[in-house]
């Protein structure tokens, strides 16, 4: 199986070369590249599923006779995330097949490399291969973010993204170095010698910063709301759905699996705190953003936060010897990672379809698309329902497990941890409810109401492959929502790697149980109940009531009919994106987001309209990016002085460096 996967990786690299060969020859390479990517994604999903069902194959080298001992392995954890990558990648490739066939060569060749980098990160069995894949993924996705580089904002997003990607690398390389202090960089050897003392703390800080920056954890999330919307839609879907999960995988692999189960309770606290902060901040920002894809990117921050909470809880439970609860928390994280990958891909692709049809990402230029794009609207409604964690869709299953784990967190027994857990539980519930508000706002603005622009009125559904790319994840979102028990059993291997505990007796087809006598969630039962009661209501009401409906102009409290030249009514009489966000902006915005709102009135007698200006500032801009920018400027001013050095001073610099390096080597030899 690993041979097949190695060959697939090689195939993806060859696909990346193809568009460069075809430059200026007019070959239809787009179809070949995306078709090949679709096939590769299908192989990933198939291999992941096979490994989850049939057990892990023995580790083997990436290529025979390579210059570095690059080991590949496919244990439960890798297989679970590979399945996720395959499913999200297949939807994305399917969508690209019908919309991005004519993309420029830099996009076409970076796309398969991006897929290959993610897969290599997941398959790596040693630190070097992991870093190789991770950096390949970062670099390829940077090229994709910069695809539309004619626009200044995209260039800015790509530059910020690259800086954060480099920062992740700078954190992860020493982390792997500290883990491999014994000299062996394979995960198996690292597991034998888990870090202790200051080394453990350093590894924790470096991995949380390095992988957390890639996943979008607060406070290192600043790039995410800029980069995800800048990329083409199928790439945004892959970045939000799969790439953040690959970062989560690195987090889980290094902090839960490789560093061994012997860590104390506080090991999970950073993940718990940052996860809760990300969940609330992301969900709150999603309610304020006015660009549909930025809104989805902020919702990704929220969901990554929820997954991080699950992982942090799993660490704490494991340290407190609460194996069953640790499996519950890890299961919540694994399940939510898969579910989020699917519904977020679906939402990004759906809004990508809207971007094609209605030519805008701004919510204030959309509206009424449910009439023009019924298929897209239905699929996005399913995705939005899952993102709003409504039962019985898949988002609710993960959220239910996570809340149950949080409700049981007091069993850890440490008073400080209990207090923390109560706070995190409140924040997780707040984030879930805020996400529901954000999703209602997204769907209501884009698909409901009246068209706000002529383009929105003239939109249409995409061709059938693109529709399939929406219907496939929508269907899986429903199915996974109904079958969380079997999915949890399937994730058994992953949970074994994370917490060394199995969940088989708690997860059946019909139900997931928290523990003996504690709560249970039966999605099929609740779906049946909803269906039967709904059908009974329809039957009873329709039997009594006269059939059909009458149509008339909207009542709207007697608002006057629009003038003739505005066939869809005056757009400004509809709720706007800022208006729908206003209650939350006023209620919750100020403590966190430094919201400002001001009305500029015309002078008396002037009939021009009053203008309302509202905005907010993410705290990470003020507290992290601005000081860093000042630091950069200061360093630049210092280094500029190097230009004025004399020749002798210039020669002294390399000489001094050489001496310092030799001294370092001598010191290391002496130890």
């Amino acid at each position, binding site marked *: 199986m690993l041979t097949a996967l190695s060959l697939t990786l090689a195939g993806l690299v060859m696909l990346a070369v193809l568009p460069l060969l075809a430059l200026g020859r007019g070959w239809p390479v787009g179809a070949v590249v995306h078709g090949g990517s679709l096939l590769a994604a299908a192989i990933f999903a198939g291999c992941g599923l096979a490994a989850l069902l049939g057990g892990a194959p023995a580790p083997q080298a990436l290529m025979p006779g390579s210059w570095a001992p690059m080991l590949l392995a496919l244990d439960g954890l890798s297989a679970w995330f590979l399945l996720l990558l395959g499913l999200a990648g297949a939807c994305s490739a399917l969508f690209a097949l019908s919309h991005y066939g004519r993309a420029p060569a830099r996009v076409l060749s970076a796309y398969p490399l991006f897929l290959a980098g993610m897969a290599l990160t997941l398959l790596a069995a040693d630190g070097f291969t992991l870093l190789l894949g991770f950096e390949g993924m970062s670099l390829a996705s940077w090229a994709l973010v910069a695809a539309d580089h004619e626009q200044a904002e995209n260039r800015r997003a790509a530059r910020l993204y690259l800086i954060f990607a480099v920062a992740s690398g700078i954190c992860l390389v020493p982390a792997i170095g500290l883990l491999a202090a014994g000299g062996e960089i394979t995960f198996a050897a690292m597991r034998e010698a888990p870090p202790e003392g200051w080394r453990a703390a350093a590894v924790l800080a470096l991995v949380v910063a390095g992988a957390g920056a890639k996943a979008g954890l607060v406070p290192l999330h600043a790039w995410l709301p800029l980069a995800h919307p800048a990329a083409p839609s199928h790439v945004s879907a892959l970045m939000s759905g799969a790439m953040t999960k690959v970062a989560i995988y690195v987090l889980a692999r290094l902090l839960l699996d490789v560093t061994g189960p012997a860590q104390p309770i506080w090991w999970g606290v950073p993940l718990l705190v940052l996860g809760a902060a990300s969940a609330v901040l992301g969900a709150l920002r999603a309610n304020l953003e006015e660009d549909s894809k930025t809104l989805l990117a902020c919702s990704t921050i929220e969901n990554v936060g929820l997954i991080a909470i699950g992982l942090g809880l799993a660490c704490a439970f494991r340290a407190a010897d609460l194996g069953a609860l640790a499996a519950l928390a890890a299961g919540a994280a694994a399940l939510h990672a898969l579910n989020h990958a699917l519904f977020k891909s679906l939402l990004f692709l759906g809004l990508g379809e809207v971007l094609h049809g209605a030519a805008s990402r701004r919510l204030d230029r959309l509206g009424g698309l*449910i*009439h023009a794009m019924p298929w897209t609207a239905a699929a996005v409604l399913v995705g939005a*329902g899952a993102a*709003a*964690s*409504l*039962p019985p869709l898949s988002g609710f299953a993960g959220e239910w497990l996570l*809340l*149950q784990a949080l*409700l049981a967190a*007091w069993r850890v027994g440490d*008073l400080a941890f209990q207090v923390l857990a*109560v706070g995190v*539980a409140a*924040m997780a*519930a*707040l984030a*879930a*409810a805020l996400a*529901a*508000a954000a*999703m209602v706002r997204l*769907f*209501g603005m884009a698909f409901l*109401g009246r068209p706000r622009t002529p383009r929105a009125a003239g939109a249409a559904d995409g061709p059938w492959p693109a529709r399939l790319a929406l219907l496939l994840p929508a269907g899986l979102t429903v199915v996974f929502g109904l079958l969380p028990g079997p999915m949890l059993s399937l994730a058994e291997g992953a949970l074994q790697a994370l917490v060394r505990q199995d969940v088989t007796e708690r997860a059946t087809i019909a*139900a997931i149980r*928290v523990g003996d*006598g*504690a*709560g*249970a969630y039966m999605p099929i*039962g*609740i779906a049946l*109940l*909803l269906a039967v*009661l709904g059908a009974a*209501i*329809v039957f009873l*009401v329709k039997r*009594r*009531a*006269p059939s*059909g*409906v*009458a*149509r008339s*102009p*909207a*009542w*709207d*409290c007697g608002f006057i009919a629009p003038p003739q030249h505005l066939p869809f009514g005056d757009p400004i*009489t*509809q*709720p706007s994106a800022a*208006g*729908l966000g206003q*209650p*939350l902006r*006023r*209620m919750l915005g100020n403590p966190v987001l430094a919201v400002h709102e001001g009305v500029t009135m015309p002078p008396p007698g002037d009939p021009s309209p009053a203008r309302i200006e509202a905005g907010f500032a993410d705290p990470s801009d003020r507290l992290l990016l601005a000081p860093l920018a000042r630091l950069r400027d200061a360093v630049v001013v210092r280094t500029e002085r190097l230009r004025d050095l004399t020749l002798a001073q210039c020669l002294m610099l390399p000489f001094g460096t050489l001496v310092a390096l030799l001294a370092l080597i001598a010191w290391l030899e002496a130890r």
Partner: protein
Amino acid sequence: MGFLWGLLTQVVHLALMLVAAPLVVGVIRWLKARMMGRIGASPLQPLRDLRKLLLKRPVLAENASWISRAAPYAGAGAALAAVALVPSFARGMAFAPLADLVLIAGLLALGRVAMALAGLDVGTAFGGLGAAREMSFAALAEPALLLAVMSFAILAGTTGLDAIAGTFQEGALGLRVSLGLALVALLAVAVAENARIPVDNPATHLELTMVHEAMILEASGRHLALWEAAAALRLTLWLALLAAIFFPFGTAPSGFAPLGWLVGLVAWVAKIGVLCLALAAFESAIAKMRVFRVPEFLGAALLLGLLGALLLFVSTRLA
């Protein structure tokens, strides 16, 4: 055999709730009218209104989509499903294993989202205003609800409503300060979720102050009947939930107990009557608050829930 009795109590429970829901709304209106010195409409008036509305053909806006047609059924279905899970006169109903408090919160959210989408469907200003406010209030109410659930889960060891009600009925826990705090928090959440005074005024149609009514302005005929029924069911659900958790006296145990059922029925009607009276008195005594004061109201509920859970930790440590 046990399942059969469970099914029987479940069917009786559903019928009871369906009958009680319009009556609860009618009785509260009547009580409020009496307290304000008016004669008031008969408590049966909501039933008559529902019957009248059901016989009318709905009028939809020209640009209304299938959301407007499907949402009333989704909202009423979700409310009915949630109502089916909250025990009234007896425990051990057929759907009791499904009755998880987090799930009930999820079902209420499902109904809320259906209503907010229906409010946004036609693209009218009031619908959007109501939807935005409703979702925002829920965002503040839901953490408070979860913290109250946390107190129950710590005391009863589960989030299953049936088991919580059973544990509290046995009385082994005694009176606890945390439960008192959770009760106040849940009362505030219930007031907000049901759009009652001081959060929203169910009787008003003044545009700037309404939340719930703003979303269903465009609904008419059987659709309006369904929305009204869903609102009534939700109010009854919250009263029944409070009764089941905090006043579990007299509820019949699971299994075959005809005498217990009768006692439970009488006790439940009495409990709901008292709660209706309390709600009517509270609503008559207090004024509606400004929309942007509501976060303070719900924030206080959140803090009380937080305090309740913390007190539990401290007290279990002392014990």
